[in-house]
């Protein structure tokens, strides 16, 4: 390409850039369509003493919790129950990270149930992260109630 050509192209580009542009747009009234969940899952408690509590950002169980798990393990085996352990978190921190943390809590409880004699195929785990708080407030009192694992019949 010679210099004259380049000059002409530059001129054209400059001309295009400096003159008024024209546009034609169209809108339509198409809106998204909604759907609803069917067959909603529901669950029930096993006993009133089926909740384990955790420290912030932690998934280990204290000695009081270990005693509770021993009692639960006996109850599960005596009645030949299948259970589901739900892990929950408080609202601090990001949601997906809390979903992972809730799973860690549920798995810790499941492991302790197994150590206490419950067959592993009788236990299922699920994490709800911070999505199902027991108490709605944004304060330490609510948060301490929300950092929990629940053992439920399934």
């Amino acid at each position: 390409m010679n210099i004259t050509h380049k000059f002409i192209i530059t001129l054209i580009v400059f001309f295009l850039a400096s003159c008024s542009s024209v546009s034609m747009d169209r809108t339509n009234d198409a809106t998204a369509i909604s759907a609803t969940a069917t067959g909603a899952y529901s669950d029930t408690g096993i006993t009133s003493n089926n909740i384990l509590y955790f420290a912030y950002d932690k998934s280990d169980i204290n000695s009081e919790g270990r005693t509770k798990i021993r009692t639960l393990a006996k109850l599960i085996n005596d009645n030949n129950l299948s259970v589901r352990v739900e892990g929950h978190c408080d609202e601090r921190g990001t949601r997906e990270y809390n979903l992972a943390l809730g799973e860690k809590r549920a798995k810790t409880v499941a492991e302790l149930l197994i150590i206490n004699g419950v067959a592993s195929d009788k236990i299922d785990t699920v994490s709800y992260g911070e999505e199902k708080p027991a108490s709605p407030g944004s304060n330490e009192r609510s948060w301490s109630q929300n950092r929990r694992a629940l053992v439920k019949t399934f």
Partner: protein
Amino acid sequence: MLKKILLIYLVLFISNIQSQLRIEIKGGAEDPISIAIVPLEWNLDSPQDEYLHQIIKSDLESFGEFKVLPPENMLSFPSSKEEVFFKDWRMLGVDYLVIGRINVSDFSEEIITKYTIFDVAREKSIHRGSVIGPVKTLRKIGHKVSDKIYSRIQGIPGIFSTKIAYIDKPSTDDPNFNLRISDIDGYDSLSIFSSPQPLMSPSWSPDRQNIAYVSFEEGTSRIFLQKLNSAERKGVKLEEGINSSPNWSPNGDKISAVLSKSGNPDIFIYDLSKDTWKQITKHFGIDTEPDWSPNSKKILFTSNRSGSPQIYEVNVRSNRVKRLTFEGTYNARGRYLPDGKGIVFVHRKNGVFHIATQNLRTGKIRILTDTFLDESPTVSPNGNVVIYATKDGDRDTLAGITLDGKTKFVMSSIKGEAREPAWSPLID
């Protein structure tokens, strides 16, 4: 007949069109661009439409970049170039002028909006455009005009026609979780999925036709894909443990997500045509919150492999991992900026969660928000604005801030308890 319908429509909506955003301009902002939007003339005897120019005004003033001249300060209401006296507009300090006309056909349900944008200093028109659409899409028409004004003056795409997907948690009004889609000012909100069990993590397909999200309707977390125009939905191949955090790849054929089937949460890629999962990260810690880089080559994710949550980047081809954040003990839920040169994420400082941004070349962090429990940042497709989830008292709500940190807004028109906003791609 149509004239009557129009009249009723206008009467109903003029009273409704207060600004949808509670805007707060922080100190130090440069002089906004002054623009006049002359109330657009209808080919009707009455009423004069106030609605369209108000939509445009509300759009343009959203992020503090424009100041729109009130009609009562105008010396004339030109609707054609011949009626424009540039000297008058210069005297009013106006940089740009928009005039136009709306034509309504008695035989059609559609209106044609024609408009011209003038550069007042140069006394020249810089754009002439028209938008055609049904009367009831007046807001969409306004957003289209706003987008064109914005892009012609600012040189980057306008985002007023884009959408926000978000999750609405159960309230006294509605016992269900809802996945909603609304305009970016929170207006025209519509539930596209409703469930008594939690919904999480919406992600748009790049063609904006589908949304991926997590639903607990089957008792565990599972990723679902839903088509927006038909409500057709299907569950993605379910694996044991967590199935969560979907994020659509830039070319739309894959979804990065989190599975814990290996015993702990790791990043996987789901291939939509093959219906297969491929493991990308492998670590005994928590790996989560993937976000695809704009060039598809890397995935941003959160991991606690160092002992506290930090943001990493994994090369999709080599699976090589690089740590990106080092400041503080909680950095999570990262999202790339559209140019790939920076990220926004959740950063904890003194126990408080803020939205922050980091330049990936210099590593420098800037905290953007000063409120409590801010999370889930999502970046506008033109890279200028971040919308995030925050608290308004005890209520979950959405707010936004420009990346320069100068303009902040609360989406006060959003009712209920909103969280997890996801900004749609640009709408052409």
